[in-house]
């Protein structure tokens, strides 16, 4: 028998107003109230959230660790990630080189650590860029309406019909290999989904009484968009952006794996795998394992965090109860 606890809202399962009284207190708010004594500070709130969403807490911890590793890379590593040393070409993991060395005799541990910088730069860069322009396009489309909306919608349709990776590949090839161009190439496929969400919530918010009220008070349209509409689209935006972080890391890795991503000298996890790929599967498996583990963990962390944020901010899409 299932343990006699469940925070599934009663009215949802029983239906109608039966037990409305018992079920009316949303369990989250109820718990928050119970924990109220401790939730006075920002840290208290964070602790409470971590307790309620343990997996989200783990995700946040992983993301924080990756950011720390990226920032503190020079202090963590013992070798220059770019320095070659033919003597240790394809060396197996050892005390001096915990993850071994690649064909050119570069310390893999240092390369993986510095790879976090590249990966996170691309992930955050592409997300910020994508969100900024996506929001701009979505706001314009939803708020201005008319032919602007129509034209934007058609262009979004076109962009969306191009597979993400293919579009990123084409962009990367068109712009040429550089860190900035990779960021742009990954940001552009993000635009349609962000613009869509912002447009949709703008359309519904535009008719809300508080927007009408602001308009009646003589507030300018621009100000209404910035002060009233944008903040109210924040929740879906945060959810989308966090989910996008993991995708960005994956797309960067795939692009670099295909030789279309971040060029030398930036150490990139994806490129480490393409350099080593098929033949090292036989001869030097550590070259295949460690960069892949790094990618997977980084993406796993952002996915966990994204899931928890979605649960928290967008209860309609709750995947876990």
């Amino acid at each position, binding site marked *: 028998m299932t343990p006699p606890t469940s925070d599934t809202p009663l009215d949802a399962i029983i239906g109608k107003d039966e037990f409305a009284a018992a079920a009316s207190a949303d369990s989250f708010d109820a718990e928050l109230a119970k924990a109220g004594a401790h939730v006075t500070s920002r840290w208290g709130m964070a602790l409470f959230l971590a307790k309620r969403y343990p997996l989200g807490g783990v995700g946040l911890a992983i993301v924080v660790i990756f950011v720390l590793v990226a920032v503190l890379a020079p202090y963590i590593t013992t070798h220059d990630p770019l320095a070659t040393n033919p003597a240790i070409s394809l060396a197996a993991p050892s005390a001096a080189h915990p993850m071994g060395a690649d064909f050119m005799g570069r310390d893999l541990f240092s390369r993986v650590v510095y790879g976090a910088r590249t990966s996170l730069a691309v992930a955050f860069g592409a997300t910020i860029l994508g969100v900024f322009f996506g929001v701009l396009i979505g706001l314009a489309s939803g708020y201005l309406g008319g032919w602007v909306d129509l034209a934007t919608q058609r262009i979004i349709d076109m962009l969306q019909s191009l597979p993400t990776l293919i579009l990123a590949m084409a962009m990367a090839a068109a712009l040429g290999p550089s860190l900035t161009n990779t960021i742009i190439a990954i940001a552009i496929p993000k635009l349609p989904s962000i613009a869509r969400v912002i447009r949709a919530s703008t359309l519904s918010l535009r008719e809300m009484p508080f927007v009408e009220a602001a308009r009646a008070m003589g507030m300018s349209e621009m100000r209404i968009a910035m002060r009233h509409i944008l903040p109210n689209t924040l929740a879906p935006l945060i959810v989308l952006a966090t989910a996008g972080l*993991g995708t960005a890391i994956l797309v960067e890795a795939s692009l670099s794996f295909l030789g279309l991503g971040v060029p030398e000298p930036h150490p990139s996890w994806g490129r480490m795998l393409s350099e080593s790929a098929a033949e090292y*599967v036989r001869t030097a*498996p550590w070259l295949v394992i460690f960069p892949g583990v790094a990618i997977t963990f980084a993406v796993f962390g952002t996915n966990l965090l994204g899931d928890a944020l979605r649960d928290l901010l967008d209860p309609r899409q709750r995947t876990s109860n």
Partner: protein
Amino acid sequence: MGAYLIRRTVLLFVTVLGVSIIIFALMRVVPGNIADILFESSGYIDAVQKAKIEAELGLDKPLLQQYFGWIGGLMTGDFGYSYMSERPAISEILPRLPVTLKLAGLTLFFTIIFGIPLGVWSAVKQNGLIDNSLRVITLSALSLPSFWCGLLVLMFSVHVFGTIPIYSNEPRGPWHELALLSIPALVVGFRSSALIVRLTRSSMLEVLRQDYIRTARAKGAAENVINYHHALKNALLPIITLLGIEASHLIGGLVVIETVFNIPGLGRYLVEAIRWRDYPIVQNLVLFSAFAVVITNFIVDLLYAVIDPRIKYSD
């Protein structure tokens, strides 16, 4: 319904036409064309030779003329010539199509036959051991880069069986081919079925708490009938939408996995073509992929009306 179909089809072609402009423009922004790359190895650029090659390939013509030459050709079935092989693009593309289609079909098959039943199972056993394990597995699957997953499979195979299950040009019969294609299809399908599992689960949970499920129980229907007959059909709409969206991710996944497993399909060919700035090939392949996505979503829209009687495309 008829009017709707016509409108949709027109819109479909407008979208694809727009995509063709985007692709064409992108390809022309690329720094360096094929002539540059041909000279790269020799270290210097012979201006006369380069101009000759460019003239031969039509790269010296005005951009608009190049674009309309391409689109006009497409209308008449002329896909242009590959710069690399100097053969008609169509005779480069067509032979590579079947293996990619088989791989895509197989991946979609795995996505559906694992994704939907496991999602239903997860929802039915909500918060149980199965559900929680599946949640961790699906989240991991979504975090795993498919090319790395493919490399791990290769590594596993090397260390356990001593060989690599790489697709060779001529598989020994259809069963051997199926076996060889199943491995990369499972690798790509792992990710997409994980997505389907998650969506099926949440969609089913939403449906299972509806009143009509209780009605079905009150009628005396068995759990399996309730889950698959009453609930799943209602839960299917968002799942099919996601399958449509996934078609686009799937194409990206195929590009990567064909490279890892050395499968002579269109995906790997696209990567090569981009490296060599083989414009006609890249343009056609990217347009082809967009066309595939648009068509898939068109089919998805039509499926809506089949599944949900409330949806009618009347105007």
